[in-house]
């Protein structure tokens, strides 16, 4: 009898935890586009905020005393290979440049396409620090 009571209580708490996780998942998850997909979908996206993953092309520049960053995001295919010959996206970003931002790094940018076809990023997330283990 007692065990049943505990089972009941445990189930309630379990459901509460799962409910919390599902709610958090709905607001806290998203999908990101590859560069090619984003360029393809650009006209349909309008002003909605999206995330794009790609690789930082050589020749990124900063201005405004380091607070404006300008770079080209190259397409990375499904196997993780960089495609420098395919069209890239020009990204503008204002804010603190992440410490491990560099050429060749895979980054996720979050923001909107501008009218002049460049991408205004509100966030640049650096990933995959291959530098920790140079080849």
């Amino acid at each position, binding site marked *: 009898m007692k065990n049943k009571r505990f089972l009941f209580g445990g189930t309630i708490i379990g459901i509460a935890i799962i409910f*919390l996780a599902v709610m958090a998942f709905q607001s806290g998850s998203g999908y990101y586009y590859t560069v090619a997909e984003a360029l393809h979908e650009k006209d349909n996206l309008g002003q909605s905020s999206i995330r794009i993953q790609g690789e930082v092309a050589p020749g990124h520049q900063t201005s405004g005393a380091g607070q404006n960053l300008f770079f080209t995001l190259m397409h990375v295919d*499904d196997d993780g290979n960089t495609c420098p010959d395919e069209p890239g996206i020009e990204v503008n970003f204002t804010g603190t440049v992440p410490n491990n931002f560099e050429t060749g790094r895979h980054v996720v940018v979050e923001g909107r396409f501008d009218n002049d076809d460049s991408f205004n990023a509100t966030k640049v997330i650096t*990933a995959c620090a291959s530098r920790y283990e140079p080849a």
Partner: protein
Amino acid sequence: MAELGYITLVLAFAASLFSVAALIFGGKEGTSWLNRNARKLVIAVFILVTVAVVILETAILTHHFEIRYVYQYTSKDMSLIYLISAFWAGNAGSLLFWSWMISICGFVLVIRQRPGKRELTPYTLAVVMATKAFFTMLVLFFSNPFARLDHAPSDGLGMNPLLENPGMLLHPPTLLAGWALFTVPFAFAVSALINNKLDNTWISYARRWTVMAWLLLGVGNIIGAWWAYAVLGWGGYWAWDPIENAGLIPWLLSTAFIHSMVVQKRRGGFKLWNITLIVAVFTTIMLGAFLTRSDILQSVHTFGRTQMDLPFFGLMAVALVGSIGLIIWRRKSLVSEMNINSFLSREAAFLLANFLIVGAAVITLTGTLAPAFSETLTIEESFFNQSVVPILIAVILLAGLCITIGWRRPDARRLRFTLISSGTAALAVTAGLLIAGIREWYAIIPVLVSVFTIVSSIMVWLSDVHSRKRALSENYAAASVNLVRSNRARYGGYLVHIAIAIMAIGIVGSSVYDVEEYAILTPGETMTIKDYSVTYDNLLGDGDDGRMEVWAVLSAYKGDKYLGEMKPVRVFHRSYDGSVGRVAIRYSLIEDLYISLSGWEPVDKDDHSKGYQAGFMVEVNPLVTWIWVGGGVLLVGGLLCYWPRGKRQSPSSSGNPQS
């Protein structure tokens, strides 16, 4: 030198394999020739790996750049502490360190063993030495720290400037040591299953190992958070990065394990649960090691893709499948002997706390792994903040409630006294916050809960001191010291609860009420943020081709009061494209003033003598220091739990007068 290092590792590998075989086939402790020699092999492995570690560290300190690892991670201009810590700057060295830690565990198990008392030892040692052999295999065949270059360069590449921080000296080794130490409680559990000795024996052997491993892992994570705060330059200390999560998940699970161990020891319950938890801890540690070395998830911590992902996955699979098999085999011995008498008992509270902590760990694990199963899915920080954080706040509340109720049935008078006093304190603080104009319920509730837990922990301790004083007619000073000495685990635990609550207050304050401003200033210009004003004086630099530092000099004021100079730095290093920031922070208990230098350009492009304008990110982060203070308290409380029982105890002073 490199060859000698490699040969000692080959010998250590062979010796660990032999010791595993001898331990499995050697029968009971000390009864056979095989078993006695297995113990000698364990000691030999420890000595051999220690020699290899000394050789690698010596090669680093004496600049033997013909060894590739030394070439890749060090250079002549590095200071001593970074040279020492270069040992674990790369994959090969950190694996060697991990393997060394396991060999120390084996060594300690052998020398601390009392004859006739440890029937679990042979299989425990066998599991430890098998894990040790696995790590030595990785070092030998996948990532050899002693590999040579075909020439001897005159200087090395130097350490990644991101790693140049005092945190580097402590964060990796404490985490690695924590992970390595968890091998021992896991091994005790496996041995208990094989020997079908599933009473409290393995729990009592595993307890102190678990506490130490848990403490190292916790402190390692906190040092990592401080490092991120001071170096990464975005003002944050925790980003729910997959590898941060990989450090957090085993820590959460082992927190649950430490509590459920107590229930088994006192009441014979939670047997299956305990075995499951320690298996989960070991498996998630291997999962973390696997994730860091594969490219299925992206994180600032990964080593990039290595060939080690498969071996780690294999070890994880073997540990998991093997343990589940053993559990099914021994399921009849894992039946609980406990009946929970009341919802208002410690058993019920421990059960609930376990449930919640494991729930938080499972959610963190799900959120961490989800992107691996769907190519394009991203999980944002808000997912974890909205799911894991509320659960952990509930756990803190439980910690406060739990200590006010005793085992089996609560003591009504004591319950009323602590509940009223700590409830009043918590409500008073809440009233203060409301009067101060704070309205955010998601900040007020965690603070209310944390204050409640801190005060109730102190109240319970005070009331224990009071009862002891009356019962044994000691004075208050003697009673408070002797009380803690009589049950270090309990009062150390209270201190840990207080530490976690202090950290929670710091986390809430800094994540809800931080203020951030960007500014581009010319020399002499001032910016203000809250009641601080910061004047940019000038930009200076120093260095050579290999390494250069540029820093801005700023004068900081709070109101009219001069606080001092602040110097945010950017470091350029030849082994790194771009630059790395080093933040200037003015710590205080109330709030930190935090300045990061983002860049600069000449005021006049044609005339550099007019100086440079510089870009800054300035933040005021309230209560961050509470997190580091909480970390210190956690360390003290954890050590108190770990400390062995004193030998000088008289029978009358052992045990707690209240329980």
